């Protein structure tokens, strides 16, 4: 049997991602469809923020301070007269970006660690010890620690989010990879002399990728919550940069005079995370029901 022929079954069963009709099945789930629509709209408005935002998010106007929502300013204005809708749009951009960077980098690193741990039993103990130590630091603490050393800023939040993602992904990836390692095609690949690199990438990784992907989708909402909590604590974006968590914290000082300044950014976070969670749940049900808790 040639190496190509051996690859075929691996790719065929390469996981539920390649199954046809995933989108179709997702679309039948009404809640998931609405969540996907909402997330797409939010993502689009974040990407095209300069076009969509009605005002300059940094333009202060002291004649229009703390105005409640109106036809002119849909979400009202903040304590320096900036348009909150525009700031929420730009803030969403930063918040989503933070979440994406955290999930993508953390997912890559964690996936790599988990798969290597499963493939090289000798490294397994060491990698998993490292993961245990990482797990001993809750994300918020990492954020605080990085901010303590390097100063508060978006960088501190990104590092915290990556560190928060890596250990969990590593565990899930290792679990999935250990399962794949036991399959016959791995043994067959080894027997015909497929190189380690090919075995790890084409045989192992491609078979674990859907599990990792579903897990990351489920984590995305949590990562955004952690990021915005760090922003709220003042460890993330610094004023005047718009970031939803930080905007909520700034609005807190004016909570009794103009509650909308704090509640609208908080609400925006809630909507993003809710949509992400609902979509993640639906994706999991379709793609990888094993992850269900």
């Amino acid at each position, binding site marked *: 049997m040639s190496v190509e022929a051996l690859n075929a079954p691996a790719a065929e069963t390469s996981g539920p991602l390649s199954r046809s009709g995933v989108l179709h099945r997702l679309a039948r789930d009404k809640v998931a469809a609405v969540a996907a629509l909402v997330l797409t709209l939010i993502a689009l408005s974040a990407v095209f923020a300069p076009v969509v935002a009605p005002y300059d998010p940094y333009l202060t106007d002291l004649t229009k301070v703390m105005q409640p929502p109106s036809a002119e300013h849909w979400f009202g204005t903040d304590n320096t007269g900036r348009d909150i809708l525009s700031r929420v749009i730009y803030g969403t951009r930063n918040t989503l970006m933070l979440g994406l960077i955290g999930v993508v980098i953390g997912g890559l690193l964690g996936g790599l660690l988990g798969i290597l741990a499963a493939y090289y039993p000798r490294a397994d103990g060491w990698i998993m*010890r490292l993961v*245990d*130590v990482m*797990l*001993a*630091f*809750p*994300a*918020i*603490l990492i954020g*605080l*620690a990085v*901010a*303590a*050393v*390097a*100063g*508060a800023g978006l960088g501190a939040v990104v590092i915290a989010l990556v560190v928060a993602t890596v250990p969990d992904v590593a565990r899930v990836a290792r679990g999935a990879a250990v399962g794949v390692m036991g399959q016959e095609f791995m043994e067959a690949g080894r027997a015909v002399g497929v190189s380690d690199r090919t075995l790890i990438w084409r045989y192992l990784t491609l078979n674990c990728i859907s599990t990792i992907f579903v897990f990351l989708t489920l984590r995305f*909402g949590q990562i955004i*919550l*952690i990021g*915005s*909590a760090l922003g*709220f*604590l*003042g*460890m993330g974006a610094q004023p005047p940069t718009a970031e939803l*968590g930080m905007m*909520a*914290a700034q609005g*807190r000082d004016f*909570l*009794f005079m103009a*509650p909308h300044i*704090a*509640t609208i950014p*908080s*609400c925006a*976070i*809630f909507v993003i*995370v*809710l949509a*992400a*969670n*609902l979509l993640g*749940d639906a994706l999991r049900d379709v793609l990888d029901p094993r992850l*269900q*808790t």
Partner: protein
Amino acid sequence: MGRQIVHRLLVSFPALLGVLFLCFCLLQVVPADPAMIIAGPEAKAETIAAIRNELGLDRPIPIQFAEYIGRVLRGDLGRSIISNKMVSEELALTIGPTVELMLGAMLIAVPCGLALGTFAAVRRGRLSDRIIMAISVAGVSMPVFFIGLILIQYVGFKWGLLPFTGRTGPIWDGGLPSLVLPALTLGLVLIGPIARLTRTAVLEVLGADFVRTARAKGLRETVVIIHHALRNALIPVVTLIGLQAAFLLGGAVVTETMFSWPGVGRLAVGAIVSSDFPTAQGAIMILAIAFLTINLLVDVLYVYLDPRVQRS
């Protein structure tokens, strides 16, 4: 069971060492020289050198780390740069309030989560089940500070029912009213995940043979559900509570900051904002150790709840 616990303690030792090492590194990589900060901007070079020598900053890193562990074991975490008080003394004052807040939150979240989850499982597929699950998904997606803001705005400010800044004292000394809103904020976030998992776990157990047997021998439904189903469903739920410890801790930091609750989290945030490195490092270390301890407790509880773990 004793052996199990000793084993678990040994396993968490590397993690503890890692935590200590990272905390130690925190002080090493700080951009500012602690000796210069303590000496002040106009200090002479000799003074700085003397302070460096006194702090042991001129010795090799491994020796500094060993000395650091020695100091931590003696409870010496250095002095706050801002207040010049011993960090350990400041921390000692804040640990109580933080534990109080977390216990208060758990006291709200665990019974509510268990009750809602069990109820939803029993009423599976009906409207009440769907409503409970919708609320729990919404709860999982809610930032802690959003709940806090709403509670402060309405319960605290508009209706004036409860205090919402600071802590008036220990619970036994009239401090209960000031604890309610912070604990509720932190607790409400945890109800969702607990209810969700309880529902899944109870549903699984409800299909088991022993539940059918219990029903067949004519036990009342409440007895079946509480004694047979819920007790067995508790095992995954306890694990979840352990997993939520990180969440609980992070939430506590946010909640303490919001409600000016004098706990470890607020101390850490304040210290970072004012570049008080020794205090920040001490507070972060205590929080990390608290996290390890919660996980350890959960593991012990796990052994107690599920005797099968002992045998394996």
